[in-house]
């Protein structure tokens, strides 16, 4: 029996097995640690909460919301540039009366396609689709000396993914 020859083949085979295992471990670790921590839903929740809090006060909707040139960005401290075309964010503010009719025109900012995408993603759980959060709040509103009840609906969405930058320049 050629014992030496068998040992050599065995050691080559052994290192091949180790290399395969090593490749598996390296690939597994790289995949696990390079995975994206998905905070899009939290981000959408923060955005919707921020909008609800800044346009309402002690159970009343702020009167400014019905002013013709109402600027949601300056009132809520939102950056207009961030919500410009190609944005990673979206929001829609709807005010309904008690009958469910729109009380005023919707206020929209960001990428409007998110709303449809979010509806599609709800059913199928698409990974690259944006995440949306809707907040509803019943509020009161002063109109012509009368207190009216209205329903505020704020839908916010985010589709931001982590960006790796090569040069740190501020």
């Amino acid at each position, binding site marked *: 029996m050629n014992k030496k020859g068998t040992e050599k083949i065995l*050691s080559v085979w052994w290192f091949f097995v180790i290399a395969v295992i090593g490749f598996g471990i390296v690939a597994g670790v790289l995949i696990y*640690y390079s995975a994206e921590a998905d905070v899009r839903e939290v981000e959408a929740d923060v*955005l919707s909460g921020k909008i609800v809090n800044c346009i309402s006060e002690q159970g009343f909707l702020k009167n400014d919301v019905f002013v013709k040139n109402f600027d949601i*960005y300056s009132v809520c401290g939102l950056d207009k540039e961030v*919500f410009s075309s190609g944005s990673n964010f979206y929001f829609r503010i709807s005010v309904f009366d008690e009958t469910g009719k729109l009380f005023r025109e919707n206020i929209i900012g960001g990428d409007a396609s998110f709303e449809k995408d979010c509806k599609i993603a709800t059913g199928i759980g698409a990974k690259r689709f944006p995440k949306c959060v809707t907040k509803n709040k019943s509020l009161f509103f002063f109109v012509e000396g009368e207190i009216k009840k209205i329903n505020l609906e704020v839908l916010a969405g985010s589709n931001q993914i982590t*960006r790796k*930058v090569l040069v740190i320049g501020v």
Partner: protein
Amino acid sequence: MIIKNKKGDAPIIETVIFITLNVAFFVLFLVFIFRSAAGAVVYEQAYAKQIALLLDGAKPGMAIVVNFEPGIRIADKNKQNLDEAVKINNETNSVIVSLLPGKGGVSYQFFSDYNIQTRLDKTSLIINVGEKNE
């Protein structure tokens, strides 16, 4: 007269080389796994998102204190300049966290329109949120 047992030496050397190579392989794997687990990449992403979310929910006049101890430890270990570790770009509204020198960093955008200033105090990162025109 010394007689060398050349035939007997060969299997011992082969065995030693074989064991040494095996040990080297496993040590390399372990070092790789531990470096990945406690690595800068994980912390860069976590800090960038944590800070961006804090800024999203912040209001002017707030001072936010973030425990940055692991970040400082990693930056020190990798000889990264601590002034470069966390940068806020008020123009593009983004947080850039870089814990490795010369390898860029992780950037994450926030939607609040405030003037943000950061500074490191021992093991904490202090973020001051001010009005844009301040």
